[in-house]
């Protein structure tokens, strides 16, 4: 009983103590520590996993690369246009973020289609405009199975072609927040409105780092 009280008190104190300092988002993924020589001295350097370079066709049939997202933060996800399960909810929620930050060039959005057979650029274009996306801030891309599915691993998002699930593709509905250094700073269940609220709050926190 007394222990519980002290624990609670300690927690409360920590919480209060933390309040004044600006909150920072964690860097997600397994980090690696390497020894580096700087001015003749060996120093330890921590390397965080990053999203590698990529190049995909977008909804305008134009090659879009990681360069588009340089000096921006962005939110990425994986979906397909005729997905009957989680995608509509996930895209409805991401649309909230898009509308909130529309025309704010510090932030962009990137949806990768995992249906490499059907979701050609014109299909993505029609989908995007019907969703209500009318500028280049939210990109929809398609690529080879190897490229898209390989990259989803880097975003820590599960994707799989699976004939036994509705729509033919299985995947998780995470919205992944990426910083200027292409590091993962948060992952949010795009079908859960509380987590989407947290994403919106975390976007503001991350934007503070680049003021």
């Amino acid at each position: 009983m007394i222990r519980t009280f002290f624990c609670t008190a300690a927690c409360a104190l920590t919480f209060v103590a933390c309040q004044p300092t600006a909150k920072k988002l964690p860097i997600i993924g397994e980090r690696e520590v390497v020894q580096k020589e700087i001015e003749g001295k060996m120093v330890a350097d921590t390397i965080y996993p990053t999203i590698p370079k990529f190049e995909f066709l977008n909804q305008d049939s134009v090659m879009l690369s990681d360069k588009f997202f340089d000096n921006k933060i962005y939110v990425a996800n994986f979906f397909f246009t005729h997905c009957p399960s989680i995608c509509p909810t996930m895209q409805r929620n991401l649309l909230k973020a898009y509308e909130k930050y529309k025309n704010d060039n510090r932030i962009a959005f990137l949806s990768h289609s995992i249906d490499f057979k059907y979701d050609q650029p014109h299909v993505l274009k029609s989908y995007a405009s019907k969703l209500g996306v009318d500028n280049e801030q939210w990109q929809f891309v398609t690529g080879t199975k190897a490229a898209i599915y390989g990259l989803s691993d880097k975003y820590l998002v599960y994707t799989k072609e699976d004939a036994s699930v509705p729509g033919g593709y299985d995947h998780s509905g995470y919205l992944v927040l990426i910083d200027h250094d292409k590091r993962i700073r948060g992952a949010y269940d795009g079908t859960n409105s509380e987590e989407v609220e947290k994403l919106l709050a975390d976007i503001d926190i991350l934007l503070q780092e680049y003021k």
Partner: protein
Amino acid sequence: MRLFHIFIILGITIFSLAYLASCHSNLNIETAQYAVNGQKLYTTNCQNCHGAKGEGLGKLYPPLTDAAFFKDNRAKLSCMVKNGMQGEIIIHGQVFNEKMPANPQLSELDIAYILTYITTNFTQSDSIYSHQEVKEALKNCN
């Protein structure tokens, strides 16, 4: 004293009648039951696309709030839910033209529950889609 009793009885009668009348203007008990059962089924089978409030999503998925559409297409609604649909439809004056998937897993009664939930919650309809009505409608799907 006797007059006083009469007043009380009269008062109670008027009150009860008023109460009953107000009940009547809402849903009757069976419709309400159908709608409650329909809510759960709606969440599982329909909400992803059509939204928690039946608001739809952009021009991809139509909202389920057009009372006139429901009225004009009453006989076709059961088939739409069961077999899906494609082709152009106009909802609130807006054209939608996407394919809706079929829902073969839903029973006749499930569909009656769902349609009752949708029309009483997202439009101001107070009418029930009975099991019998859905059964008949499904016989005449194209």
